[in-house]
């Protein structure tokens, strides 16, 4: 199965195509696509360049990136695995 992902135009953040064709940040909210739906999703995202920058499809198993680029896609989905961005996230987490 596949997901559609891209970077968001206004801030470059990683986004996925979710339900009702919404752009969502959480991979868990991404819509799982079969082969036909994947092609349609790619066409849709390409037609919305004000949101989706460089859209492409990734392979997943149970929403976890699989395939050759699985590590890169896992890091894209959660952010850097180390460093100050994690401290920033912790500081800004709403309790």
């Amino acid at each position: 199965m596949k997901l559609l992902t891209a970077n968001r135009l206004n801030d470059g953040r990683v986004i996925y195509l979710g339900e009702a064709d919404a752009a969502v940040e959480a991979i868990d909210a991404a819509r799982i696509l079969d082969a036909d739906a994947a092609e349609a999703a790619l066409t849709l995202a390409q037609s919305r360049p004000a949101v989706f920058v460089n859209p492409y499809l990734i392979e997943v198993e149970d929403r976890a990136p699989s395939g050759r680029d699985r590590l890169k896609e896992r890091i894209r989905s959660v952010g850097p695995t180390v460093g100050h961005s994690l401290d920033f996230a912790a500081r800004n987490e709403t309790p």
Partner: protein
Amino acid sequence: MYRYDEFDAALVRERIAEFSDQVDRRSSGALTEDEFKPLRLMNGVYLQLHAYMLRVAVPYGVISSRQMRRLAHVARTYDKGYGHFTTRTNIQFNWPALQDLPAILSDLAEVEMHAIQTSGNCIRNVTTDVFAGVAADEIEDPRPWCEIVRQWSTIHPEFSFLPRKFKIAIVGAPKDRAAVRTHDVGLQIVRGEDGQTAFRVFVGGGQGRLPHIAQEIAPAVPGQSLLAYLTAILRAYNLLGRRDNIHKARIKILVAAIGIDAFRDEVERQFAILRQEDLRIPDEELARIQAYFTPPPFADLPATSPAYDAARRLNPEFARFTRSNLREHKQAGYGAVIVSLKPIGGVPGDITAAQMDVVADLAARFSFHEVRASYEQNLVLPHVRLEDVHAVWSRLREAGLATANADLATDIIACPGLDYCSLANARSIPVAQALSHQLADAALLEKLGPVRINISGCINACGHHHVGHIGVLGVDRKGEEYYQITVGGSPDEQAALGEIVGRSLPAEEVAPAIARALDRYLEIRNDGELFIDTVRRLGADPFRTAIYELTDAAA
């Protein structure tokens, strides 16, 4: 340091206005990503894995305390509270929003900073010796020449669309502290036969997929002719360099393909037909620029400081810091303090906004408002009175900036790797952190002495792994991170590329393997012999054996 004249200020202002309009048009959809990409790259804006990234130029690594405070402001206001110093002595912000970019650039312009030519196929930020104007072995301060090259190369109409990016480094001493032989063009100040300033010129160095050490093309180009000679080199490259294959487009490939002698002939042919009078640096202009780099008003101090000596005697931790992170200054009674951006287990080159403010305050109070960025991804307070070093150290220590490891094994150079970079095959930072923890013992570090370890997350070699005494290259093996180790590289006047010791290792085996190689060095070194000299004497074999000892035994 250099201050913008009206031309610099106008140029930066006009560029921000132009780029603001481009950002607006991109936001409105009037520009596609394909149309916008070359425009944003001309302004240092990349689109990385998680966000846009802005690379801000730090010309030849010189920063004022006011500029450092402004960088802290940018980190705090528009980013996630930190920045990352690179091996090109620039600083990168990893999380700016597209619409904020014009405001960030305007804020930076107020303190004479910009992001022009920090990416793209143009002449990039010129780098130099972080101890320029400080080191006693210097023939001449290279910074005025860096500034001249900066002015000449900024938005140079002929050289804004080169076959590929182009990097220049300049040193003013025989000791190469700027890795000039790893550059497209490396310049070393020498004395010409007439006793005047001249440049030994190296060409065709570079790392990446096909690494080359630069070769000497000219032994002593007179200073007045420097821009004409550089123009001749760039013109030859621009005409003959390949544009059909991005992997073969750097000048190193051209020089290797036709040979240094043929390339020299072409450069001399171009040099002979240049309008030399237009490119000759007028004496008064050279003097005007040199005046910006006159030494600060040093106090007339004795060579030693009783207070400093006493602090060293009383505090072993401080004494250790001074042994590793304090460098001699040509001015009596002063030293240069290396601010470590390599805390144990930290991210090499990263610095928080609060830390930037601390460095800015220390520079203002103790170092004539001056900070330097080194290509080793550290900062330097270049002019600190010996009697003030203890106060500086105390404040740095509170801020987590006083790790006593400059040039030692945990002073690891590393690119951002797959945690941030869309080109990377593997992560660099976690490997650096594991190695840093493995080698954290301060006594061990001192015993090992200077060891340069470099880590790159892909073959583009932003972590300079080819010229690390020990290099680590991340590779992708069927979706898994593996790391290839090299031994014997060197970035300095004895520049050499490291030798790949064998098959790549999984991430968790890298730090223990390197620790074994360093243990082996301690066993086999001669008295007082540095790590790199032991490698030069014995070759890579003893280290290869140590690196694969356990994995071979298990096989």
